[in-house]
């Protein structure tokens, strides 16, 4: 028995069009690219109008010249709506949403450690994933961080 309901693309775009272009892969997968400065309003609007009460994931991707943050939300209608922003690689700053989405308090801390993205207004953005003696400012999940050649024969060297 499957209850995949999803939301029609029209309602998603009507709610989020003022913030950015909306694309819908299928009834249960929608995403919108918003500007970093109005990320909070976009998230607020998405939560209110599209009744998204569950924060699924904060995915982060190093796309070369920028870091793409994806706030993936869902609700009782089972559709996944991901609000995406791109932050410049030089100064990756964005407003923290820990008050809107409490679990974000934890996820942002992890992203800060692994990517170096700074979340303004975040209360305790201290060391998270890495050991105490890990050098400051070195963010392992960035593409330019090369792990010394993986010891496994045949596996490629660090990317």
């Amino acid at each position: 028995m499957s209850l995949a309901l999803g939301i029609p693309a029209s309602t998603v775009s009507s709610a989020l069009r003022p913030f950015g272009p909306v694309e819908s892969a299928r009834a249960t997968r929608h995403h919108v690219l918003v500007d970093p400065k109005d990320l909070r309003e976009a998230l607020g609007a998405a939560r209110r109008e599209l009744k998204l009460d569950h924060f699924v994931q904060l995915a982060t991707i190093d796309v070369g010249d920028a870091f793409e943050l994806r706030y993936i939300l869902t609700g009782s209608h089972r559709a996944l709506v991901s609000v995406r922003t791109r932050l410049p690689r030089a100064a990756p700053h964005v407003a923290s949403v820990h008050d809107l989405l409490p679990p974000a308090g934890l996820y942002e801390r992890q992203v800060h450690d692994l990517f170096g993205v700074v979340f303004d207004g975040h209360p305790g953005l201290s060391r998270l994933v890495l050991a105490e003696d890990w050098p400051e400012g070195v963010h392992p999940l960035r593409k330019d961080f090369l792990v010394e050649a993986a010891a496994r024969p045949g596996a490629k060297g660090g990317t």
Partner: protein
Amino acid sequence: MDLSNRLANWARLKSPWITMFNSGACNACDIEVIDAVTPRFDVERFGILSKGSPRHADILIVTGPVTLKQASRLRRVYEQIPEPKYVIAMGACGAQGGVFKGLYHVVGGVDKVIPVDAYVAGCPPRPDEIIDGVVACLGIMKEDLAHGGKEWRRKAPALIPLAPARRRGVAP
């Protein structure tokens, strides 16, 4: 007096208390060690008790490829255990870091942090292999008692005689 020595050695071999330390493992080994305590394998038959406090333990079972953060904690727990103490490194991770070898946050291998006396192969080793590992460690303990301490091993670690259990053929 020979009698008291023999009694002391007998007691030390018959009551090996273990304590576990997870130095960044995927916890499959930890579950298999706890499996060894449960009814089907029941290590209490050999006098093996799993103790919470390192102060009460003889054998430290370390699971996982030591992560950077756990290295100092592993060293501290190792120092808390009263002599004579033995270390068993569990599974492929304990030996050289296993599938996590070469990752940026992993030291890889327990022997890079503390001296290890016995290795148990497998990922994760089955509970009966873990018991075999403890028995092998007891064999090493017996050898140490015969040679008066661990020093002789440090000079020629390669000569550790495998416990007779190892040469047993394929289990029936």
